[in-house]
C-alpha cells in the first residue's frame, strides 16, 4: 500500500476535487474544486517522473548524475501557469456575477434571470 502511496493520494484528491465541483452550489467553492483537481493532475504528472535515488536534474554543484526525469517538471510548470490563469478568469466572472445578481449560488442565479 505504501509503495504506491502518491498514486492513491492522486485518486483521493481527484475524487474530492470532482465531488466539490459537482456537488457544491457556490461558485467560489467550484473554483476551489477545480484547483484541487488541477493539483491532483499535477501531482500525478510529477510522480510519474520520479526515479528512486535521483536528484533534481540540475548540473550546478550536483553531487551525482543519477537524475530524476526532467520532462514532467516542464509540463507541470506549464500546467500551473494555466491553473493560475484559469482561476483568475473564473474569480473575475464570479465577481461580476455577484455584482449583477447579488449571489454566487448557482441555483439562485438561475431563478433571478430576467
Amino acid at each position, binding site marked *: 500500500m505504501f509503495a504506491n502511496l502518491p498514486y492513491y493520494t492522486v485518486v483521493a484528491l481527484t475524487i474530492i476535487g470532482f465531488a466539490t465541483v459537482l456537488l457544491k452550489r457556490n461558485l467560489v467553492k467550484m473554483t476551489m474544486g477545480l484547483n484541487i483537481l488541477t493539483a491532483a493532475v499535477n501531482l500525478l504528472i510529477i510522480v510519474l517522473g520520479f526515479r528512486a535515488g535521483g536528484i533534481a536534474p540540475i548540473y550546478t554543484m550536483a553531487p551525482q548524475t543519477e537524475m530524476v526525469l526532467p520532462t514532467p517538471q516542464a509540463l507541470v510548470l506549464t500546467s500551473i501557469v494555466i491553473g493560475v490563469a484559469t482561476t483568475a478568469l473564473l*474569480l473575475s466572472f464570479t465577481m461580476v456575477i455577484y455584482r449583477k445578481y447579488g449571489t454566487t449560488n448557482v441555483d439562485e442565479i438561475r431563478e433571478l434571470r430576467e
Partner: protein
Amino acid sequence: MQMSKIVRLSADIMYPFVVIFGLYVIMHGHITPGGGFQGGAVVATGAALVIVAYALHDVKAMIPKVLLYLQESMGLLLFIGAGLAGMLLAFPFFFNWLANSGSLFGMPVPFGPNPGELNTAGFLPIMNIAVGIEVWGGLTLILLYMLSGVGKEGY
C-alpha cells in the same frame, strides 16, 4: 482604505528587496532552479505588497496602466522575437543559434557537475527575461483589475 503609516513604510522598505530577489531568480534561471515564470511571480508579489499597503487610487497614480500594458506586450514580443530570430538566419522557428556560439550568452559548458556560468545557454536567459517581464506586468494588471472591481455597487 489605506493601511497605517508603519505598514506603508515597511512596504516601501521591503519592496526593493523583493524585486531584486525576483530579478535574481529570473536572471539565473538557466543555472539554478527558477526561471521566467517563478521570478516574475516573485516580483509580482512585490507589486501585491504595495497594492495591499496603499489604497487603489494611490497605486493607480504610482503604476500607470499604460506602462503595464507596454511591459506585457514588450515581454511577449521579446519572447516571440527570440523565437523568430532563428528564422532570419534560415533556421527553423525557436532554433537557439546563440548557444555555444561564443557571442552574447554563448560560452560552452563543460559536461558534468560544474559551478555554473552566467554567460551561457544562448537564448535561454533572453527568453527568461522576456517571460519574467511579461508575468510581472500580467499578474500586476490582474491584481489591479480585480481590486478595481471590489466594493463598487451596481453595474
